[in-house]
């Protein structure tokens, strides 16, 4: 195998792992935001948010 193969594989492996890491972190954040929005929509809020709402 040529040296180009080892260089290309190194950058490809790094790119795949980094892109998967970015995608996983981003999708995890979106899923949590969606869950929080659903809970909020069903009227379930954090106690601190409820206290603020009551004060207003």
């Amino acid at each position, binding site marked *: *195998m040529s*040296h*180009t193969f*080892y*260089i290309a*594989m*190194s*950058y490809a*492996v*790094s790119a795949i*792992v*980094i892109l*998967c*890491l*970015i995608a*996983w*972190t*981003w999708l*995890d*954040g979106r899923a*949590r*935001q969606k*869950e*929080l929005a659903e*809970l909020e929509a*069903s009227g*379930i*809020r*954090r*106690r*601190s948010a409820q206290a603020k709402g009551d004060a207003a």
Partner: protein
Amino acid sequence: MTDSLAISKFSDLANPTRFLALAARILPWMAVITAILFAIGLYLSFTTEGDYQQGATVRIMYVHVPAAWLSMMCYTVMAVSAIGTLVWRHPLADVSHKAAAPLGAAFTLIALATGSLWGRPMWGTWWVWDARLTSVFVLFLMYLGLIALNRAMDDPSRAARVSAVLILVGFVNIPIIKFSVDWWNTLHQPASVIRMGGPTIDQEFLWPLLIMAIAFTMLFFTLHVMAMRNEIWRRRVAAQRRMAARLAGHVTGSEG
């Protein structure tokens, strides 16, 4: 006065709501800076001359070395967070080390894979069980163990305390990795950048390496802040679901 101001600012950050507000402000900037650094670093990595002995294979260094640095730096960040959990019970400390573990595992995997791909043409072998390679492999297993431990325990604060103790015990591996090339005979070369007497590496290779190292470091901190934010949201979802279950129980109880 200045000290109390600094402590006050630090303790302000301990509030998860303030951390979320700060994360929302700084994350876009961190992402842009990371992208610019990667663009410059990758451009330099592929436009500099090859090494007189290794040829173009030296370009593997620009991803291997930053990933290897980060594998150790991430564990150091986790160890500092573990002290925060055990000593100060800092609200964000356990969030920090739990969020950092998958990132550390990913960067260690990159270091191991690219090291193996560099070793094959340079050493004539994919892998040897020498001190440097074995200690980094142990670090990878430690990251996986910590991820599994955090996921196996339902109570996040209990999981955080157990993880914190294991992280601090496992920190002994970091100086072993760093000095393994000096203490034992290994195939791996000794330090050529961070060493007494300055770097021995040629300027031509040093600049792309430093820029790629800063880019990888910025990527780590960007992803770490994102992962910490996700973990805070995850805990809020769990707390709100518990509250909803309690409310449902009250309603059922009063009806009965």
